[in-house]
């Protein structure tokens, strides 16, 4: 009997101990510093930190390798989280191209690839010969049409080669959205200003890769400095391989290159 009676007492004591432990560690977690400092985590683009940013001496390029893109949509998810992009709008998205045996092309992009591609497309009614994914983002043109049409100077190409939007100056006229040959711009539903992919300018300035490049599991997205002869981007661009830009005939001279791009992609 004695042992049975002592059991509950022991449990109660244990319970109080556990509660105390829990509260103390819980409150300590809120006080003790956790996490890393952004300046201390390893640099992803070498040679940016610890010196002044020279606007005129930057030459960045982005390469999308569609031969290894598996359409997981990590990039879209990361982008959505980095900028808190409202639902239904995409700064970057992944398109799926399907080719039937009679060379008909079908393109779809459910939710921009945010939820990934879980099921094959079934509404075609004919066998699919080939499927591939094409991630899309801002092409960072060297001669951007969006900048040409902006009436208030709210969008511009900075001297370091990034096409950016000044949301304080933008009046939301949406000329740039119509002018962009790649349809990467949208009007933010809350701020009513134009928005688009910036190749994560704020991250690059701190030596980090753009969010989408950072999360890509297969290395389909590459970003780097062309002035650095050891960078992966320089090596790919100076080497052999099918490397091309989208809508070359528009004359916008994009800095975004596609590796292994196919004729069907527009």
């Amino acid at each position, binding site marked *: 009997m004695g042992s049975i009676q002592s059991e509950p007492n022991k449990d109660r004591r244990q319970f109080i101990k556990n509660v105390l432990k829990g509260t103390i560690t819980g409150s300590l*977690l*809120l006080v003790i*510093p*956790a*996490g*890393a*400092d*952004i300046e201390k*985590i*390893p640099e*992803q683009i070498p040679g940016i930190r610890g010196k002044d940013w020279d*606007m005129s001496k930057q030459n960045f390029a982005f390469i999308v390798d569609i*031969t*290894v*893109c*598996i*359409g*997981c*949509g*990590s990039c879209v*998810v*990361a982008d959505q*989280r*980095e*900028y*808190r992009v409202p639902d239904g709008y995409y700064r970057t998205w992944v398109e*799926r191209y399907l080719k039937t045996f009679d060379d008909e092309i079908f393109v779809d992009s459910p939710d921009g690839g945010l939820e*990934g*591609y*879980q*099921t*094959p497309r079934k509404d075609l009614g004919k066998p*699919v010969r*080939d*499927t*591939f*994914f094409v991630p899309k983002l801002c092409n960072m043109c060297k001669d951007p049409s969006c900048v040409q049409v902006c009436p208030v*100077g*709210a*969008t*511009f*190409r*900075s*001297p370091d080669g990034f096409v*950016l939007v*000044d949301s*304080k*100056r933008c009046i939301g006229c949406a000329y740039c959205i119509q002018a962009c040959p790649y349809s990467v711009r949208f009007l933010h539903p809350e701020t009513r200003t134009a928005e688009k992919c*910036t190749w994560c*300018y*704020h*991250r690059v*300035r701190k030596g*980090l890769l753009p*969010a989408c490049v*950072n*999360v890509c*599991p*297969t*290395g389909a997205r590459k970003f780097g400095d062309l002035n650095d002869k050891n960078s992966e981007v320089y090596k790919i661009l100076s080497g052999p391989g099918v490397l091309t830009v989208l809508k070359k005939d528009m004359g916008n001279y994009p800095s975004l290159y596609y590796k292994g791009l196919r004729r069907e992609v527009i």
Partner: protein
Amino acid sequence: MKSTYYSHVLRIVLGLVVFAAVGGIGKYLLTPKSFGTHGHYRADAIEEEASLEIRQWTNASCMTCHQHEALIHLKGLHRTISCEFCHSAYADHVKDGKNVAAMPVKKDQEIRVLCLRCHNRAIQARPKQVIKTVVMPEHLESQKVKITHICNQCHNVHAPLKYINRAKEIVGIQEKT
């Protein structure tokens, strides 16, 4: 004969001067500071863009604290996957050096949805040399497990072949993947 009345000319000149002055002052007041430093835009907008908050960090930043997971993750085939892809953004977890919220961990059926996002062979365009793919439920049948099994019952989510390679080692099958 020359007219001696200049007041009308004076009025026009004065009007033009006032117009120019008002225009000049108006332009000065309405043009934002730093406009035109580099071109027809506000140069300060570049620095504003550069000072945006970084919400998605890197795997290295997660692994400064989570060393146990790092040891498993970095050895496995999933080492190129970002921690934040499955566990949500770093900025929601740590703020000003303090742990502010727990990160979500995917469970049960969510795991299968997550795995098949990449590993579903039914979606073509997933080259063999890039990723290993499976067909469900054939994969479960061929491995002789229950049809209700969830991927992480055999595969460690951080290092998918961890248990499988260990099991092979134990039973003495020498096969490296």
